[in-house]
């Protein structure tokens, strides 16, 4: 199944040539990191918010405080839903948890009363712990199965709050924590919450523009490719669960303080829906969109006071409206850059001379070897005792009829399948089966039969994802935009730009990837694979759908890559390409090696000619 719609691209108008050049020039000049145009709206919103207590009465300050608190939660949830694509619905559970933890600790129901700030800290810790607990099913369950499990958790938390009367006050509830001066007034509490909201915005913004943010989107849109780039789903998701849980519980503590008195009734299912829909109408993979979504959803019932009882209905109408008018959410409506026309006549002109800094093959071992590999699906032997060797610096062609096991063999090398017998070794050391995310570190990169890219991200960002394993900054460093993180970003952007120019896509760096043509996506995948600095690169039908001149340039590019020491496994149906550039060719038929040898041997092989070449 194809993950991304591949349009025949709307970019043929030659009148648009001029703007193309302007676009390319911008791409060259821009260094790295978020653009000012991404930051300015956020700054403007918070600057406006600062004025609220000066310009209005206590009632609106209260509403604004609530919006700020909701955003603290939604900002974290946004990373889960909008970036990682995990449909966590029941996040009101963490708000409840945070509210009760803070209130109980400040009231001193179980131990000596804590200072409100300390209680907020403990609530955030508890929240991160439970955030992981709620999130763990996401590593196994998909889409709405995971959504259901989060709803279940929400129910459990409410029931505990009701039943554990000695601590939580049961249905009667308990007073919320009162913050010390100067945060005990309406305006004081508002500024406190606004400050935390700004901090959370900054942290998630930094994260979104880091290799972790890109990796989250990669897991959402192209999980298989993300694993091949060495991105570990469990580690990354758990980091996000920690963060989202902590800020949600923190929001809970602030919420309790705002409410002054909490009962389980305060944490309705409607709130969960509000949080979820704020992200949806905001748009995936954006910070600004969900922020606006949260503000709108918080204010909406106030402007339509008689309709307050209909809030869920209003959310539903708003959601439907957004889905119909702007399926990409508010963020998409605000996105002007990607409506610019693209240049016509974009030939892909690789520049192999630029490959030198991208390829650094150091060791000189035996290369990849497959020995007596066997794998069946059901009763069918997909791969039946295949032997294969890919030395460094050589191009090994793998051909054969459709369904003969070529892609399966490639998937065995890159760790998606476990062979039932036999082993795959790299320099005589076994490669761990069933662990695709380890391959990038071993120096094995790959491309896919149908390109697996992130349509919503720019071409440059797509290529930067390939370099995820080369980043050195940790998750917290990325959140705080520490120097090491900024160094990573510069390094990744520079080397991604270089890789794009090397494969001949230099002028398209800033374009959204889903606007590219099929043939360009093939070269994009090669650029992304080069970002891991591979010793071996596995290409799955890179020439499919390419025009003859593009195939010829692809052939030269592959040869230049191999000449610099990288080993290439080339699965292809274009026999001309195979015979022109391969050093060795293996022919598979029905999962077995039908023939192996030099291109000349294969061309003359009787059975190959009759079974395959025709």
């Amino acid at each position, binding site marked *: *199944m*194809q993950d991304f719609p*591949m*349009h*025949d*691209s*709307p*970019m*043929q*108008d*030659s009148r648009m040539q001029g703007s193309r050049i302007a676009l390319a020039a911008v791409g060259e000049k821009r260094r790295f990191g978020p653009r000012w145009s991404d930051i300015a709206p956020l700054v403007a919103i918070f600057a406006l918010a600062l004025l609220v207590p000066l310009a209005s009465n206590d009632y609106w300050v209260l509403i604004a405080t609530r919006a700020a608190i909701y955003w603290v939660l939604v900002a974290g949830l946004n990373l889960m839903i909008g970036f990682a694509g995990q449909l966590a619905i029941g996040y009101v559970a963490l708000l409840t948890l945070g509210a009760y933890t803070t209130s109980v600790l400040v009231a001193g129901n179980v131990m000596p009363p804590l200072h409100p700030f300390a209680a907020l800290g403990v609530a955030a810790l508890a929240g991160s712990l439970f955030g992981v607990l709620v999130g763990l099913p996401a590593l196994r369950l998909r889409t709405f199965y995971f959504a259901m499990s989060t709803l279940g958790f929400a129910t459990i938390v409410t029931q505990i709050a009701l039943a554990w009367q000695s601590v939580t006050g049961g249905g009667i509830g308990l007073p919320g924590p009162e913050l010390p001066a100067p945060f005990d007034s309406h305006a004081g509490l508002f500024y406190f919450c606004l400050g935390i909201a700004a901090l959370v915005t900054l942290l998630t913004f930094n994260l979104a523009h880091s290799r972790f943010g890109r990796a989250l989107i990669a897991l959402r849109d192209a999980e298989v490719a993300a694993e091949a780039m060495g991105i570990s789903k469990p580690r990354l998701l758990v980091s996000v669960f920690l963060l989202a849980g902590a800020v949600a519980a923190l929001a809970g503590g602030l919420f309790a303080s705002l409410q002054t008195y909490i009962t389980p009734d305060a944490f309705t299912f409607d709130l969960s829906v509000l949080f979820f829909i704020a992200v949806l109408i905001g748009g995936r993979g954006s910070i600004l969109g969900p922020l606006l979504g949260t503000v709108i959803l918080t204010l909406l019932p106030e402007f339509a006071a008689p309709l307050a009882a209909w809030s869920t209905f209003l959310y539903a109408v708003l959601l439907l409206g957004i889905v119909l008018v702007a399926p990409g959410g508010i963020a998409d409506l605000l996105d002007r850059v990607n409506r610019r*026309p693209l240049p*016509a*006549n*974009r030939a892909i002109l690789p520049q192999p001379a630029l490959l030198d800094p991208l390829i650094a093959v150091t060791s000189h071992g035996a290369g990849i070897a497959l020995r007596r590999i066997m794998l069946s*699906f059901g009763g069918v032997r997909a791969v039946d005792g295949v032997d294969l060797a890919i030395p460094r610096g050589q191009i090994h062609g793998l*051909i*054969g*009829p*459709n*369904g*003969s096991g*070529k*892609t*399966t063999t490639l998937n065995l090398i890159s760790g998606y399948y476990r062979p039932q017998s036999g082993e795959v070794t790299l320099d005589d050391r076994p490669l761990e089966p069933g662990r695709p995310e380890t391959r990038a570190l071993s120096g094995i990169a790959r491309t896919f*039969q*149908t390109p697996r890219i992130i349509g919503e991200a720019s071409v440059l960002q797509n290529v930067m994802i390939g370099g995820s394993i080369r980043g050195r900054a940790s998750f917290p460093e990325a959140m705080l935009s520490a120097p090491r993180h900024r160094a990573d970003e510069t390094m990744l952007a520079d080397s991604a730009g270089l890789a794009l120019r090397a494969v001949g896509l230099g002028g398209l760096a800033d374009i959204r990837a889903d606007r590219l*043509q*099929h*043939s360009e996506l093939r070269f994009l995948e090669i650029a992304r694979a080069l970002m891991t600095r591979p010793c071996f690169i596995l290409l799955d*039908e890179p020439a*499919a*759908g*390419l*025009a*003859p*001149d*593009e195939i010829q340039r692809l052939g030269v590019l592959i040869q230049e890559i191999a000449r610099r020491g990288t080993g290439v496994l080339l699965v292809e*149906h274009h*026999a001309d390409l195979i015979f022109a550039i391969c050093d060795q060719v293996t022919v598979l038929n029905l999962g077995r090696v039908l023939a192996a040898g030099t291109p000349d041997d294969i061309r003359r092989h009787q059975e190959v000619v009759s*079974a*395959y*070449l*025709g």
Partner: protein
Amino acid sequence: MPISADPPLLDISGLSAGYGKLMVLHGIDLTVCAGEIVALVGPNGAGKTTLLRTISGLLPLSAGRVRFAGRDLRQAGARETARAGIAHVIEGHRIFTQQSVADNLLLAAYDLPRGERSARIEEALSYFPELAVKRRDRGASLSGGQQQMLAVAQGLVRRPRLLMLDEPSAGLSPVLVDRVLGVATRLRNQGTAILLVEQLIDKALAVADRVTALAQGRVALEAAADTADLARRLERAYFGEREMGTL
């Protein structure tokens, strides 16, 4: 080119289309007669796929005329064009991976009379024995090339009057490419009109009656497939030079 007294089955004139404000196709004229294979070639981005999408009603056209079997298809959506007898095999082996091979074909036979469905499916499978043995397997378990076969088979189930194939060779082994194009030839001989988008130009020209080359959204060349210096003229057409006064 075959000269017949009958009007062409598909008759396009002055067609312009694109995505939103961006025009991709500019004034395309194209005809395909019953019992004829027309190869549509050109560099990537020339607008070949866009043209097929416009014909099958997936994209609205902004100017020009599309007539199919005497009917005006300007306003027709994908559903009407399918009912009128146009089958469009889209690029990139897109099938329903969560459903079995047989169910995929049943979906293609969606609005055929109940009694005919199984016979038509068997007929489509008869062209691809390697699919016939996997009829109960899920689409996802097929290899990339087998998925492409299935996509082509889906196009055959309805016995279309016009079959549009968008790069049927992508991901197929050379033997299978020959087989798919052989099937196309057989259908042509039975009177089906075929519009073939293909990057393997030599193979496409071997089965086609006529060739139309697009470059930058315009027809750059129209010629019979057995024209003597076709290769040279095609090469020029690929670079966007428009031939004047040919045909």
